[in-house]
């Protein structure tokens, strides 16, 4: 909201530095988003007459003008489409410095000299219009300073962001009241001068309200003998500075009142209202209305329509008027609607119709039903012409006053951390309109003003007291937590998992879990998916069911930037439809996914990273050849802890990699963190390290490819018994001599006894047992 300082000064004597005043607004929660200084840098701009306009020989878009500032013709090149001979315009001559430190020089425009610039309102900081030059409406002496000619006074315009709970601050008066209270300045809203003629409104028009729930208060007043024309310079100037375009005296008066008091009003051409009256009702389903913006809107029974007395809609209550009864140059009688609409209904209608206006924004936050009379009186005062009919048509179901809010000084201090006295509660609340009655024992009965619909409970008033006392004046303390801060075992293990992966050469990706339609399926997912309703972008509309699509996209993206050899992991949520009954929420799991692409990628690399991860988390697991959706059918294994499957390791199905545009093998691990990570700290018991010499045995078995190496190792482990300290596979070997479909697996066993040096007989015994066990279980031959 744009608020001119000159306007604020109508209500309180703000004479401090404009920057300091801005800081006061900030400190009260009315955030200053910008400060414009109007009329600064205009001292050099003068009134000039355009004598002649001709085409530029070398440029279509600009023309050459002859202008006079009372000292003979000057040649000025002008790009505005609206420049014409005879106009009075604002000229910045050579040497002038315009707002924004923009200095005008003598320069050539495509070969033609220009001795200055004819200005637009925007260039002068006098309005938003940048489409053409500003044409002066009245006659002024050539060469006279523009500021003097237009009566421009320097001004400061604040652009304020007003919070949703401060409907009172959505107007000049509200901002002035808040700031005056903080600055201890006197604040007053002058009473509008009443001015009524002999006619009585009840004889000129009628109103009826059929839906008081949507429109609790509806009033109408009438003024006759109006001549529609331009507004006064003061009204037009203030509207312009506040960011509204002046239209006509009637419309401007309505806008002026809205900006000043926060109460929207709507003027109708009374002669264009069939039946000379208004009817407020719910719209009929299927009914439509052409609003002032020329759009035909389909209505519903939740919308409040304003109709003429015959029942034909002429406007959407509190949101936008219709075209049929719009004020026109020929209007002479004006019916002024000033009403209070239910905030929630306005919000709903405005959202459903996707139609927002200055009026609807104010009504949906909550206007002041008690402020309506002042607003319509102010309208007539600003309009300043015509004969105002006596009386007001008023349909109002005035609610019973709410009981006062009980405020406890002790509670205020306990919540704010202040040491305010009972008197402070009163002196902080009274200037912003609250009626405070001390009732003893540090208690107060507080009646909120009608323009503060947000303040209905004690906590609301605690906030107002804190706000006006000043947040920066509240002493800062840090509470002592009675707890020892800590991460959970799961959180600690998750950090360790990340560190282990980073140590293993894998970098961390973070992706949005929202995917494009088809991404999950491209990654082989065949199950049900969860979609966003009415997403903004199709590319982010479906939740991922696996980390595979996210990481494959990341791999493909890196490959497209010539980094095909990437090792990436992600720890993130996936969302699935549970197999059984649907709960309140989707089946959401936290997984870790690892993708190893390019050189150094593939299933074997994935297995090696998995070993590091499992070792790092002290989580022994076994593998079991098996595939899963999207993964390579013959190069994938399930990862089991005990009998529980915690994920998969192996390689991405080549068709899936190709579908994401990736060449080459992609090693893959996906594990469910709920199964992988501990929920309680586990501290392994120390095992004494053997002090006696150990003995090694190397055994190479030739077995069929169908026999997993893990199975051979398991047989050895079982057969070797307690003396086995370590077992590792150190060579895998295939050749023609061994025959197709067979390979040699070389294992190294390290044997050790805790209490003695092993004898040759001990070692030979273990060796024999292992050979027998493996030969028998796997039809293996010992390679010698």
């Amino acid at each position, binding site marked *: 909201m744009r608020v001119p300082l000159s306007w604020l000064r109508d209500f309180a004597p703000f004479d401090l530095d404009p920057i300091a005043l801005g800081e006061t607004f*900030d*400190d009260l*929660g009315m*955030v200053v988003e910008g400060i414009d200084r109007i009329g600064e840098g205009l001292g050099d701009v003068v009134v000039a007459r355009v004598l002649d306009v001709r085409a530029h020989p070398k440029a279509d878009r600009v023309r050459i003008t002859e202008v006079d500032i009372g000292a003979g013709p000057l040649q000025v090149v002008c790009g505005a489409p609206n420049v014409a001979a005879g106009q009075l315009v604002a000229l910045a001559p050579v040497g002038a410095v315009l707002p924004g430190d923009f200095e005008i020089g003598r320069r050539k425009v495509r070969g033609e000299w220009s001795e200055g610039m004819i200005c637009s309102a925007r260039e002068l900081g006098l309005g938003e219009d940048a489409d053409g030059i500003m044409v002066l409406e009245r006659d002024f002496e050539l060469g006279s300073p523009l500021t003097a000619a237009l009566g421009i006074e320097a001004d400061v315009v604040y652009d304020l962001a007003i*919070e*949703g709970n401060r409907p009172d601050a959505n107007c000049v008066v509200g901002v002035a009241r808040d700031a005056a209270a903080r600055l201890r300045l006197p604040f007053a809203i002058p009473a509008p001068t009443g001015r009524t003629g002999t006619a009585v409104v009840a004889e000129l028009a009628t109103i009826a309200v059929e839906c008081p729930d949507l429109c609790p208060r509806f009033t109408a007043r009438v003024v006759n003998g109006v001549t529609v024309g331009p507004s006064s310079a003061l009204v037009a100037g203030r509207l312009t500075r506040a960011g509204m375009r002046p239209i006509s005296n009637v419309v401007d008066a309505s806008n002026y009142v809205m900006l000043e008091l926060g109460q929207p009003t709507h003027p109708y051409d009374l002669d264009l209202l069939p039946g000379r009256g208004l009817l407020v009702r719910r719209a009929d389903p299927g009914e439509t209305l052409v609003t002032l913006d020329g759009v035909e809107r389909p209505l519903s029974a939740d919308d409040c329509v304003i109709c003429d007395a015959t029942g034909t809609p002429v406007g959407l209550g509190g949101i936008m008027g219709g075209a049929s009864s719009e004020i026109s140059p020929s209007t002479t009688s004006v019916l002024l609607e000033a009403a209070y609409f239910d905030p929630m209904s306005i*919000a709903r209608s405005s959202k459903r119709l996707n139609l927002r206006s200055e009026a609807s924004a104010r009504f949906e936050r909550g206007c002041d039903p008690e402020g309506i009379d002042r607003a319509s009186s102010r309208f007539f005062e600003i309009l300043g012409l015509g004969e105002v009919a006596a009386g007001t048509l008023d349909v109002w179901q005035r609610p019973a006053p709410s009981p006062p809010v009980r405020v406890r000084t002790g509670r205020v201090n*306990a*919540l*704010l*951390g202040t040491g305010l006295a009972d008197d402070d509660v009163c002196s902080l609340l009274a200037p912003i309109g609250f009626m405070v009655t001390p009732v003893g024992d540090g208690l107060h009965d507080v009646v909120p003003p009608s323009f503060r619909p947000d303040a209905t409970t004690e*906590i*609301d008033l605690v*906030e107002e007291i*804190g*706000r006006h006392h000043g*947040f920066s004046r*509240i002493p*800062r*303390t*840090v*509470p002592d*937590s*009675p*707890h020892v*801060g*800590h*991460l959970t075992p799961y959180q600690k293990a998750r950090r360790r998992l*990340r560190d282990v992966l*980073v*140590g293993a*050469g*894998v*970098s*961390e990706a*973070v*992706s*949005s879990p*929202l995917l494009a339609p088809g991404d999950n399926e491209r990654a082989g997912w065949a199950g049900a998916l*969860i*979609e*966003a*309703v*009415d*997403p*903004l972008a199709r590319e*982010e509309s479906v*939740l991922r069911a696996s980390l595979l699509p996210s990481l494959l*996209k*990341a791999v493909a*993206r*890196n490959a497209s*930037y010539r*980094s095909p050899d*990437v090792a*990436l992991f992600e720890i993130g949520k996936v969302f699935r439809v549970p197999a059984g009954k*649907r709960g309140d*929420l*989707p089946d*959401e799991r936290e997984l870790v996914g690892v993708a190893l692409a390019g050189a150094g990628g593939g299933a074997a690399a994935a297995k090696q990273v998995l070993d590091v991860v499992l070792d790092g988390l002290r989580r022994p697991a076994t593998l079991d050849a098996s595939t899963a959706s999207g993964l390579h059918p013959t190069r994938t294994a399930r990862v089991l802890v005990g009998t529980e499957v915690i994920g998969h390791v192996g390689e991405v199905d080549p068709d899936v990699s190709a579908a994401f545009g990736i060449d080459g093998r992609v090693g893959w691990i996906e594990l469910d963190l709920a199964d992988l990570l501990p929920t309680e700290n586990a501290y392994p018991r120390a095992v004494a390290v053997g002090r006696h010499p150990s003995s090694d045995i190397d055994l190479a078995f030739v077995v069929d490819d169908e026999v997993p190496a893990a199975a051979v190792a398991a047989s050895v482990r079982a057969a070797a018994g307690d003396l086995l300290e370590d077992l590792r596979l150190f060579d895998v070997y295939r050749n023609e001599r061994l025959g197709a479909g067979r390979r040699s697996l070389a294992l190294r066993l390290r044997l050790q006894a805790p209490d003695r040096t092993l004898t040759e007989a001990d070692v030979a015994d273990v060796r024999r047992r292992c050979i027998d066990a493996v030969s028998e279980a796997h039809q293996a031959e010992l390679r010698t």
Partner: protein
Amino acid sequence: MVDDLEHVEKQAGMRLDAASTVEELRAAETEVLGKRSALAGLHARLGALAPEERKAQGQLLNGARTRLSELAAERAAELRASERAARLEAERLDLTEVLPGPRRGHLNLVTQTRDELEDVFVGMGYTVSEGPEAETDWHSFEALNFPKGHPARSGFDTLYLDWGDPESTLLRPHTSPVQIRVMQSQPPPIYSIMPGKVYRKDTPDARHTASFNQIEGLVVDKGITFGDLAGTIEAFTGAYFGAGIHARLRPAYFPFTEPSAEFEITCAICAGAGCRTCSGTGWIELGGCGMVHPNVLAAVGIDAEAWSGFAFGFGIDRCAQMRHGISDMRILLDNDIRFISQF
């Protein structure tokens, strides 16, 4: 015999000098000092001499033997030194020509930032709480004092999910539902932070992405005040951003807190002097905060007269953006290894 000795010693000295390796020296040593050496031969002749003569000649012989032994030891040291020098020279390695071995990976910047923020709060006695990203409308809005149709809801541009009744399930627009879950599951005093991913229906641009990371904090205890909130925010901004970075609170509106405030911190770019980044104000907006609204405490069954609390929230990504000078937030979700490996 004296003449013989002189000759033998001279010959033996030449023999030792001639050895060019440690091995040759060992052989020469045996040759000149061993049992079959000329010196040993002379020694054998001592027995035939008269006692006095034997003593004198014996002394001369021993003198020659000692000198030759010393010469051999000296020579051995020389040869060992030159052999070591030659061997080491042959082992010379240019360490800058070594091919790179396995590289370490990189933690995502977002994770590093989150971990550091978590550590600050853990140090202040907080726990770290987490919850679902797909949430119920009740936990995300209703329990937080945003009834259905509340105008403040429109500020969130919530992404609802096709799950259950219409608008019953959503991708959480803030981590506040975790606050609700924490208060439902454990009695006060509560000192906890809630980091995690949140979602908005925003068109991605330099400052917004549809999913981003937020950290919220919640304290519920006896006698918690707005001053405690302001002090806590000041403490953590100083701890994370460094001494000299301060916080200020400005009144604001959120349905779930009252009084509510937005907090700004000293612009780290200009140290508060005013620059383009902070629009000349010297302050940068970081997040929102306030005293937990009594309606929120009531929704989770905490007696608002006995307990009070504060909550705050701010963007993890935004902290990273400020600290590392990231101009476009979208890069955080690009997973471009050239970006990830910078941190």
